[in-house]
């Protein structure tokens, strides 16, 4: 608790400090490569024959996903707080890579916790983290995925709280993490709003983004919340189908619970133990979801649906072939929903899909699924 209070006051002070804002925005422009483009996917739009589809190209951000927006923000904050070490959890490896990058950039040491199942399916990112000077610590407890990596990260933080900052990678965990991570990711929606106004002269009708913990989606949604005509759709991982129990669709298959300092929708059994999850994408393979998404769902402001493994894999291939962009398997879930929905909408309808990351990290995994030896 003292660590959380310390973090909250440090963050509030930083958020008011124009020097902090200037440093962050300088790095966003010259290091991360922001603003990321908003790309009109002409061929995909034509092929689906309905709504006009724009892709917010977070895959073009440095390190290949939106995770860097938050990691750089928190690394600067940790430096400012006088911490010497960053730790983080990672699922797909993107947040681990982003945090290792932030640590290298600010000269802090870095340890990344990663479930052994995720290490197996994301070996490329494991090596990237090591190249960036981080140590990757394998977590083989529990379900050996993201949730267990967060547990270990929090245990480490409890132990080394005086010297270490825990870089939570998503809009989850105890306050102030959900607020702080959202704020660092809100740049996605801020840019997208300006860009769509320039391209279309109006706001979009739909925003579609995948939801694991929920940082890329809240990042896209946040600046549009006040615009009631902009509909928001979050896409969870349907895994092998809701009925099989092998999924990570917390809204479709979960109930309210408390995990890792957060009250939200949770996949749990009748006794309050957390259930195992499955998704083809490591980044969505998580038993709970950011509390602000729970609020947006309950208030009806955003709607939540899911795409299963197969739908995500076909979306992955479709985007590669029609647009020459290989998306992350996480982002492919948002595309899968777009593929279902766009044909049912008029040609005047405008959709922005958050292409939250690039798919290079998934290429090996997809090949394995298709039975292809590389």
């Amino acid at each position: 608790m003292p660590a959380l209070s310390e973090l909250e006051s440090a963050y509030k002070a930083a958020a008011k400090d124009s020097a902090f804002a200037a440093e962050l925005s300088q790095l966003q422009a010259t290091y991360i490569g922001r603003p990321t483009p908003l790309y009109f996917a002409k061929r995909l739009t034509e092929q689906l024959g309905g709504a006009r589809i724009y892709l917010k190209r977070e895959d073009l951000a440095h390190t290949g996903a939106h995770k860097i927006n938050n990691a750089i923000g928190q690394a600067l904050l940790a430096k400012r707080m006088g911490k010497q070490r960053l730790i983080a959890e990672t699922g797909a490896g993107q947040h681990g890579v982003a945090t290792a990058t932030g640590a290298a950039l600010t000269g802090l040491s870095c340890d990344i916790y990663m479930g052994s199942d995720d290490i197996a399916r994301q070996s490329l990112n494991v090596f990237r983290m090591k190249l960036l000077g981080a140590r990757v610590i394998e977590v083989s407890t529990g379900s050996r995925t993201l949730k267990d990596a967060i547990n270990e990260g929090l245990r480490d933080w409890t132990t080394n709280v005086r010297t270490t900052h825990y870089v939570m990678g998503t809009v989850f965990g105890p306050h102030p993490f959900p607020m702080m991570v959202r704020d660092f990711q809100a740049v996605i929606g801020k840019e997208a709003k300006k860009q769509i106004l320039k391209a279309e002269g109006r706001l979009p009708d739909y925003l579609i983004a995948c939801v694991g913990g929920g940082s890329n989606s809240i990042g896209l949604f946040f600046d549009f919340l006040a615009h009631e005509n902009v509909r928001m759709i979050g896409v969870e991982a349907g895994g092998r189908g809701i009925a099989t129990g092998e999924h990570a669709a917390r809204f479709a298959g979960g109930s309210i619970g408390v995990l890792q300092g957060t009250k939200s929708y949770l996949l749990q059994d009748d006794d309050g133990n957390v259930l195992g999850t499955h998704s083809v994408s490591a980044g969505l393979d998580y038993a709970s979801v950011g509390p602000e998404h729970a609020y947006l769902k309950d208030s009806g402001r955003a709607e939540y649906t899911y795409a299963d493994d197969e739908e995500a894999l076909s979306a992955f291939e479709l985007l590669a072939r029609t647009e020459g962009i290989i998306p992350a398997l996480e982002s492919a879930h948002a595309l899968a929903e777009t593929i279902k929905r766009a044909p049912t909408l008029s040609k005047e309808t405008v959709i922005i899909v958050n292409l939250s990351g690039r798919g290079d990290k998934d290429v090996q995994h997809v090949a394995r699924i298709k039975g292809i030896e590389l």
Partner: protein
Amino acid sequence: MSRITRKFIELRKKGGKAFIPYIMTGHPTLQRTGELIRLLEDSGADIIELGVPFSDPLADGPTIQKAAQTALQQGITLRSVIAFVAELRKTTQVPVILMTYYNPVFKYGEERFARDASAAGVDGIIVPDLPPDEAGALISYCRKAGIDTIFLLAPTSTEDRIKKVVQAARGFIYYVSITGITGANLSMDASIGSHIADIKEKCSTPVAVGFGISNPAEAATVAQFADGVIVGSAIVRQAESSDADISRYLLSLRNAVK
């Protein structure tokens, strides 16, 4: 007055300190837990802390994580732990505390939990992932049911936090000896004595110390400052040793806590 408070008063009169062992319910089996409780009592345990297994035990180190996994595999739940205590009450009046994470209690229903646990003979609860700021409802249900709510303080706790815990705690205050998780190596914070003295200045609630205490020497050191000493992981590690070995170990701890 709760059994826990009565125990501390009784010890205070004798000038003694409380020895508070922790074991995980259902590790390695529920039957063994019953046997272990008899061994604990025979070795002079003043209060017994029973772990409730949870899938994501954030505050626990590898020993208790593994014990929880074992217990979960055998179907041990908060419900079965409460039933186990009810059974236990037929043969012993030793004060029993449940250490459980919050989600099982939340899912069970806080009011129903307090009522059922109290009826079973549970004397106190520790919920390590529930700070007093968020515990209003649970505290009031437990007060009504006569269950002591035990909260944690750490070496990093601020004055403000100490005040909140002092207000919310009943039975005793659990002082976490280190910044860290259960079963970690104890490198005693030099300021532990003054920290505890500082807490005791603010309240008359007893202060017991736990996390990382694994041998008689450490237990004896901690007992100099504290009203009670909690030993968990080190005992859990021995759950499958012979009764004679466990008893010897427990007695060595018991004799060190004075």
